[in-house]
């Protein structure tokens, strides 16, 4: 039992050390040449534009379901007209960032781990190094930048679509007038809420992509290893997003409010 615990702790320490080293190397890659601009643009497209459909659908249905559920609860207090307030606050502060991040973990986290993992097991990463290319600059930096910048943009889109979904339900199911819905949407929002909704996705985008890159680069054991890496990237990424959400919320609540 003790041996198992010791091995587990050693393994955890090693993974943490390698993860921190990867992040440090990636940040060095951001501020010093060579910068692979073509790969950066490619990743912005793959991560951003490529994830648009899934984010739009998630946001729309989440906002709609939220309005529907909130309507039932608010009816108990005769507060149905403020449904917009609840939808916008929930979407912008919490559901928009977290659900977008979870969708991105499933889509891009898995994709990155599988792609880089396959490159590791087929010696393509070694081939890159032998040809004079630093794999961190070529593969990790463009993905990290894309994750950092596209996650907030996608979250904003998801928030808007979610609020729109809420309006559809509020207007046609709950019979709340459009003017009332849209005025309550803006009434409930404070600048701090907007900051919260914008800062969180930066952290989530960074966490999702760096974990996926780290897991991909540490893939071992052929195609089975690639499958395992993909699963680990999604599971670890999802847990990390939810954990990061808790800690970032605590910090932002103290700092902003």
């Amino acid at each position, binding site marked *: 039992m003790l041996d198992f615990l010791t091995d587990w702790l050693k393994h955890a320490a090693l993974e943490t050390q390698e993860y921190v080293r990867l992040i440090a190397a990636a940040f060095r890659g951001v501020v010093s040449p060579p910068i692979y601009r073509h790969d950066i643009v490619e990743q912005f497209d793959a991560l951003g534009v490529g994830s648009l459909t899934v984010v739009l659908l998630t946001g729309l249905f989440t906002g709609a379901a939220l309005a529907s559920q909130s309507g039932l609860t608010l009816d108990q207090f005769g507060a149905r007209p403020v449904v917009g307030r609840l939808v916008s606050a929930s979407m912008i502060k919490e559901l928009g960032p977290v659900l977008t991040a979870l969708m991105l973990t499933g889509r891009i986290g898995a994709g990155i781990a599988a792609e880089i993992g396959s490159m590791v097991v087929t010696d393509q990463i070694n*081939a890159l190094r032998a*040809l004079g290319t630093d794999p961190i600059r070529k593969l990790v930096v463009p993905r990290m930048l894309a994750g950092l910048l596209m996650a907030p943009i996608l979250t904003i889109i998801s928030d808007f679509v979610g609020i729109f979904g809420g309006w559809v339900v509020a207007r046609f199911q709950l019979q709340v007038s459009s003017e009332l819905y849209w005025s309550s949407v803006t009434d409930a929002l404070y600048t701090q809420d907007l900051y919260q909704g914008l800062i969180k996705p930066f952290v989530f985008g960074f966490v999702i992509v760096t974990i996926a890159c780290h897991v991909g680069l540490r893939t071992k054991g052929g195609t089975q290893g690639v499958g395992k890496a993909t699963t680990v990237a999604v599971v670890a990424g999802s847990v990390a997003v939810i954990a990061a959400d808790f800690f970032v919320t605590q910090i932002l609540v103290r700092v902003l409010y």
Partner: protein
Amino acid sequence: MTSAERTRQDQEDQHVHQILSEPGAPVVVFDKVSLAFDEKVVLRDLSFTVIKGHTKIILGASGSGKSTTLKIITGLLRADKGVVWVNGKRVDQLSELQMMAVRADLGMIFQEGALFDSLTVRENVGYKYYEETDMPLEQVDKRVEEVLGFIGLGEHIDKMPSELSGGQRRRVAIARAMAFKPGILLYDEATTGLDPITATTVDDEIIKLRDLEGVSSIVVTHQLRDAFYVATHMAVRDESGKVNVVPATPEKSEEAEFIMLKDGQICFEGSAEELRRSTDPYLQTFLS
């Protein structure tokens, strides 16, 4: 670095360059190199030298440390002990960034080719020029076409690696490694898994590069047929300019040296003829 240090470094580099330009210069030197992964010792005090323009053929069973040796030369792995020199530079203590300069004169062909599967043959072969240099695209394309022409795959230039046969993929890997004209080529099981006829075409490329381009080669294999073929053949150009691979002269054969690795140590070092005549029981088992 101060200007005095820089001047001294320049003088040293010049001196090294002068030594390396002479025939018989050592381009790769292993001096008592050891490496272990946890409890498993992979290399034990391994020492050997590769002479400019010559071929070193490293034989051995699976897990004997052959591929590890190549990875240490390219800096993909770092030795625990010992000294490694490549082109007059001590590489065993260099950082990844410093190693990039050394790799500029090293080309490596990986076991399964390790072609970038999302890039075309053209992009694979010209990778280093496209990504790591500012060379104009027309010049890069010209060089890529020239190299693919040399290995006889010019018509496959726009194909993806998945559309090629195993032998073609290995030859594209050779083309990618030779495209930037390195002085040393490292072949890691370049013919493993290929049928004898296709393997011979890959062997011919190794021979042509060595004899026509003056490349120093380290060939790692456990395919004895290919090892002896590379050691005992040479490439010559006839009057019409056509390249032929013919049996090597005795002097040329002497330029190919065999090393047999067993448990990370050298158990034989010598020429093809000496290997054939060896009465060592392990070598006999390997040769039979």
